[in-house]
């Protein structure tokens, strides 16, 4: 009896003490995804389910800092930029290898960056447009730029500059780089990347497996090499309700993209940690600003006062309550999520003010009963709620809001052709710099200012100047000016920012989704 007691005490004390000095190691994390990957490659990843997984399989020279506002050492242990801003020098870490143990060399870096900036190959090559040449001598990497580029360090910490093995690509079957990449992905295996995991199983549209890279160079909090997990098994479950049931039944440990209406219920479940990870995701609605609609009729929304009026008449807090059950916040910068570097934070953007809205409408002389079409995604409960709310909120302005439901590709086509009045849309930053989102939302040559047709010479000139401005203060001022111009012109219905809602079993620790959406598994642990 005494012995048993002693034994029990020993077990209990070990169990209590253990987590204090070592992380739980091993085990496989089961992860339910909303959509599957097609091709996880630094340059061909073009959808979020691909982009967000690149970092698990491939390393970049630099890594985003914890707060996301700067960069820290990655595969390169140090970096510097010349005074004229036209040369970046980096030193490759000694002894880093790909997951199969073969050394990662300067030659691989040159190969990877060259393929990433090849416009005929990579849809992301524009992000690296300033690079003139990349060269390597031993561990010293030199990047020469055509012009100073304030974003270059951020880009070296972005998925598209992930380092791939030149030898594996040279040996792969296929006539083009893309065919080679697809062949490498299809066969899986540890040779092509140096990230914390490698691909060790893939069934299109069904499942995917990551296995731990035993040769990964980073150490965890316990001083031992990452990752802690043996691997991650992904199952693709597009249906929201089924994904949640999978988690509740214990068949998976993590379920992503929880609908906000289910958040309170999961939050109350002691076996589940309901995470709301801060994100750079903004939900907004482009407004057609052209003088005439696509059918030739006059466009009431061409008048900036009408656009401002609908913004004032929209009660964002009420929308957030209805759609997100409160799990969101109104946009404060007109051009980006508040978490994006260089966002200005002037307080509420078009705070709810019905009197002002009605005054603006009267000033603009908008005819009572004017019909405006709101285009939503068919099948999206969020969009339906938004429409119903806006219809009521804008009725006092004399606007008769009617709905048109379409699917994703149709909405995209309408956005391009300008055949819409207002439609729902969303954005998540892919890179840790405001250049991309501002180019998309406001700079006319990129995409007609997100399809709105808005064209402001001063804004466009500021944007172009900011692309080569390496003085941080001047660049910040340019971005502040652009945000002020854009807020005033209101080419969008500014709505809200939403977090990433991820439900995680209580047995899992350390799983993170970054503000850019990247899934980070290397510091996750699971206790069974």
């Amino acid at each position, binding site marked *: 009896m005494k012995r048993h007691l002693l034994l029990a005490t020993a077990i209990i004390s070990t169990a209590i003490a253990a987590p204090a000095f070592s992380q739980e190691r091993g085990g496989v994390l089961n992860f339910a995804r909303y959509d599957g990957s097609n091709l996880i490659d630094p340059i061909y990843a073009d959808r979020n389910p691909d982009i967000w997984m690149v970092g698990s399989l491939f390393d970049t020279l630099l890594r985003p800092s914890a707060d996301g506002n700067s960069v820290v050492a990655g595969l390169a242990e140090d970096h510097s930029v010349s005074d004229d801003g036209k040369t970046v020098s980096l030193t490759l870490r000694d002894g880093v290898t790909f997951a199969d143990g073969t050394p990662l060399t300067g030659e691989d870096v040159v190969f990877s960056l060259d393929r990433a900036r090849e416009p005929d190959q990579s849809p992301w090559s524009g992000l690296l447009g300033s690079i003139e040449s990349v060269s390597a001598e031993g561990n010293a990497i030199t990047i020469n730029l055509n012009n100073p580029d304030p974003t270059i360090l951020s880009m070296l910490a972005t998925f598209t500059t992930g380092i791939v093995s030149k030898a594996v690509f040279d040996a792969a079957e296929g006539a083009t780089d893309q065919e080679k990449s697809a062949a490498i992905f299809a066969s899986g295996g540890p040779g092509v990347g140096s990230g914390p995991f490698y691909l060790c199983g893939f069934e299109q549209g069904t499942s995917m497996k990551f296995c731990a890279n035993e040769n990964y160079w980073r150490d965890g909090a316990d001083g031992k090499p990452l990752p802690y997990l043996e691997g991650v098994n992904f199952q693709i479950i597009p*249906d929201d309700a*089924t994904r949640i*049931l999978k988690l509740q*039944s214990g068949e998976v440990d993590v379920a992503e993209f929880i609908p906000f209406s289910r958040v309170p219920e999961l939050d109350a479940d002691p076996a589940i940690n309901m995470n709301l990870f801060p994100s750079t995701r903004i939900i907004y609605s482009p407004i057609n600003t052209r003088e005439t609609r696509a059918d030739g009729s006059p466009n009431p929304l061409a008048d900036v006062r009408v656009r401002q009026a609908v913004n004032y008449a929209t009660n964002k807090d009420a929308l957030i309550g209805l759609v997100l059950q409160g799990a969101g916040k109104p946009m404060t910068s007109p051009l980006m999520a508040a978490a994006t570097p260089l966002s200005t934070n002037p307080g509420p953007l078009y705070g709810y003010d019905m009197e002002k809205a009605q005054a603006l409408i009267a000033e603009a002389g908008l005819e009572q009963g004017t019909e405006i079409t709101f285009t939503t995604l068919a099948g999206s409960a969020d969009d339906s709620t938004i429409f119903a709310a806006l219809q009521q909120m804008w009725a006092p302005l004399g606007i008769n809001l009617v709905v048109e439901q379409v699917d994703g*590709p149709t909405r995209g086509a309408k956005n391009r052709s300008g055949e819409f009045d207002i439609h729902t849309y969303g954005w998540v930053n892919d890179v840790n710099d405001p250049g991309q989102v501002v180019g998309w939302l406001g700079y006319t040559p990129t995409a007609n200012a997100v399809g709105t047709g808005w064209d402001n010479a001063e804004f466009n000139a500021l944007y172009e100047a900011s692309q080569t401005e390496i003085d941080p203060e001047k660049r910040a001022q340019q971005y502040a000016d652009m945000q002020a111009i854009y807020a005033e012109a209101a080419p969008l219905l500014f709505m809200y920012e939403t977090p990433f809602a991820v439900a995680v079993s209580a047995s899992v620790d350390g799983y993170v989704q970054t503000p850019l959406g990247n899934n980070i598994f290397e510091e996750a642990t699971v206790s069974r």
Partner: protein
Amino acid sequence: MATLQYILKRLFLMIPTFFLVMIIIFVLVRFLPGDPAIAIAGDRASDADLEAIRERLGLNEPMLVQFWLFVTNTIQGDLGSSILMRAPVTEVIFNRLPTTAFLTLYAVGLSLLIAGPLAFVAALNRGRWPDVLIRTVFQVGLSMPVFYIGLILLTFLAAQLRWFPVGGYGDTFGARLYHLFLPSVAVALYTSAIIMRNLRSAIIEVLDAEYVQFARAKGLPNRLILGRHVLRNALISTVTLLGLSIGNLMSGTLVTETVFAVPGVGRLMLEAIFARDYPLIQGLTLTFAVLVSVVFLLTDLFQSTLDPRMRLT
């Protein structure tokens, strides 16, 4: 011999059907608003990127040229390459088809198991409480959407009681029976309701027929009357109904496979449509057309063996 001739004739008649299906589906997918290039490259792609993708996919060719290529390639068994999956369409479909076939047959089997005995009980107790009870319960099954039944089954039997897995499809035959039980039940509840109603009235009709009255008068045992005379004759219309509902069952898999996370062709069809994956949509539609035609043929053949009066012409 006559049967073989009949089969050949039916197969020959399928050719114009398939041609018609090809025309319709070819035109329909191209009338869908939304550009496959945007679906592939995303909303943010530049116009130049989209143009390159259209060129690569052959979408810039004139419609007639595209259709000619589609027809000639299909005849040679080449359905093209899936845009979404980046693999040959035939390979993608054949990977997923067995799962859906399994699910459909499983559901048909379960429907018969559920509907058959209950139809007999209801018919033999016509108008009394067992009949009313059975019909009421099935009426409820019939009026509930499959996805709703699916979610109820998942919530109680899988997530709470944990008797069954929430999704997936298993590796071995036994595992598949286990994994696909709930999705099959969800589909079967609906189908069995239709079958039960039909079989019940067929049985009642046969029970009243003169030859059954005569068999009773002869003093044949009940078991023999029901087995030899009633069931066989009542089944004829049920088999037809089952054959005709194969189309329903197939479209039901679109919903079931999504709710239960079963990777079959139904879910594939949904993914293909959302991605505007023209080759895959075309390939899947053709596959469905072939399957339905074959099932119809089998139904007719089976009917003629049940009822020799039906001549195969």
